[in-house]
């Protein structure tokens, strides 16, 4: 049982972080808090992917050692390096995350200029009144 928890608690921590962001997106009334929740959600996914690249044992970051000027004639021990592909994919995801965050904040600023509030219920009230 303890072995089982040790092998899987890593995933559960990120699920907890992700659900904090999910709850913030659903339950909070303030639009900035919703955006912060979205950011926590995306960060949790990125942490999760980065954490899957680790291998137990004596590993380093995926930068090959002892390659100054050489052509890499010696064999590379694969088990010595962390898995590089999750790192690369999450670089792509970080770019998308920054793009969505910027556009969301810009839209929030526009809503504030139009309605003078960021609270969701007050915005809906203003729309109903036809302001």
């Amino acid at each position, binding site marked *: 049982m303890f072995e089982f928890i040790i*092998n*899987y*608690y*890593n*995933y*559960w921590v990120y*699920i*907890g972080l*992700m*659900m904090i962001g*999910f*709850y913030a997106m*659903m*339950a909070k009334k303030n639009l900035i808090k919703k955006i912060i929740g979205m950011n926590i959600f995306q960060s949790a996914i990125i942490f999760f992917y980065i*954490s*899957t*690249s*680790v*291998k*137990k*044992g004596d590993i380093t970051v*995926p*930068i*090959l*050692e002892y*390659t100054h000027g050489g*052509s*890499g004639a010696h064999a*590379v021990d*694969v*088990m010595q*390096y962390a*898995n*590089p*592909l*999750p*790192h*690369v994919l999450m*670089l*792509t995801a970080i*770019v*998308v995350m*920054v*793009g*969505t965050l*910027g*556009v969301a904040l*810009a*839209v929030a*600023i*526009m809503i504030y200029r139009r309605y003078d509030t960021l609270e969701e219920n007050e915005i809906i009230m203003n729309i109903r009144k036809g302001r």
Partner: protein
Amino acid sequence: MKVLSLITAVIVAGALVYGTLDMPKWGDPHSPASTHVSPYYIRHSLEQTATPNVVTSVLGDYRSYDTLGETTVVFTAGMACILLLRRGRKK
């Protein structure tokens, strides 16, 4: 509303935890992700791209078209921000 959100979050968390039970153990060196595809890149990165940093060689050489497309994403986001936030003439 808050109670409904909390219930939804707990249900989704339960489904995700159920999904993790099929995942390989954390840090297992013999998991499929670290035995099938990634050894190819670690072994051949130096001779094919002459770059010791494997992340750089995958991002800039093997997936360079994807990285080129990413600049379009950043450009689109920047253009959207500029078009939303500029103080144009008042109607």
